[in-house]
């Protein structure tokens, strides 16, 4: 585990989050000042909702899941060991909850091949077609087997930082690497076939 000093601040999508601010708020919350938790919520709401959204692809549900994650973090705050960065611990708690939520109420998915079937084979506006394809790829990630899906989602959420993603999944970096490799391989093979088929159909119309 990385020493606390090495993690002076964490950048999440361009925003720098100070570790000392988190630490100060946590101390206050543990001393009984519940309102100090608001600072933690304000600093981390964006990342936690974004992570939830990656799992469920539904904005409303993502906020519900993130709220439950904050509640869980609040309940377990005294279990955070100071030798691990708070953000890593919090993301691990949240990722664990999101995975359980998805097991409880799965995101409606169709088989990977069907996800990538063209809905309308006629040539479309370039921008819209690209947007559609991006969305289909994201849906295809959700349709992956859970252990590969989680690895892919967390790797990209952590801006391709393998060790951060491994910490959030509570697995070794080696395991993370192999799951990621396998997940991307499945995605690539499915996408290659589907996009080639789409291009053929588009060319024939």
């Amino acid at each position, binding site marked *: 585990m990385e020493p606390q000093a090495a993690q002076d601040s964490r950048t999440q999508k361009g925003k720098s989050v100070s570790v000392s601010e988190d630490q100060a708020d946590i101390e206050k919350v543990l001393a009984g000042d519940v309102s100090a*938790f608001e600072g933690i919520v304000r600093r981390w709401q964006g990342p936690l909702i974004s992570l939830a959204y990656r799992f469920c692809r539904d904005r409303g549900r993502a906020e519900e899941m993130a*709220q439950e994650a904050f509640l869980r973090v609040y309940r377990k705050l005294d279990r955070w060991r100071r030798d691990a960065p708070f953000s890593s611990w919090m993301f691990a708690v949240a990722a664990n909850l999101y995975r359980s939520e998805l097991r409880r109420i799965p995101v409606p998915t169709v088989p990977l091949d069907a996800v990538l079937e063209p809905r309308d084979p006629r040539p479309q506006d370039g921008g819209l077609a690209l947007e559609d394809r991006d969305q289909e790829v*994201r849906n295809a990630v959700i349709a992956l087997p859970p252990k590969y899906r989680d690895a892919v989602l967390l790797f990209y959420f952590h801006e391709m930082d393998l060790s951060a993603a491994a910490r959030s999944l509570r697995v070794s970096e080696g395991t993370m690497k192999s799951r990621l490799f396998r997940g991307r391989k499945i*995605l690539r093979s499915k996408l290659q076939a589907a996009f080639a088929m789409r291009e053929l159909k588009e060319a024939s119309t």
Partner: protein
Amino acid sequence: MIMNNDQQGTELDRILSETEILPSSGFTASVMEAVRREAAAPPAIPFPWKWALPGIIVAGAILGVVLIATIVQLSRGMPPTPASPAWNTALHSIEETTLRMGGPWVALALLVSIASMKLAALFVPRRT
């Protein structure tokens, strides 16, 4: 145009590196309301270990004695039945009482209850 593996990898990286979702305006207030409710709620009733522990220890000790006695008898090459007639009588009496009180049905009901709890736990999120 069919992409090669590298191009596909880069394309995947681009697509999956999404921008952050912004929370709705009332999100912080909603979370804090839930946190305050949680803080104000009375603490969960803990399992009464103080009262249950003696019973658990006694049951464990009896089970341990029976297991050790069985192992000792087996190692001596004797059938794993209690040696003394008093022990036999006691076991018979326990067996009869258990049958009279519907012991097998109670055991079955317990098993069904445990199975139901386990099944329910699969569908309901665990609260810690």
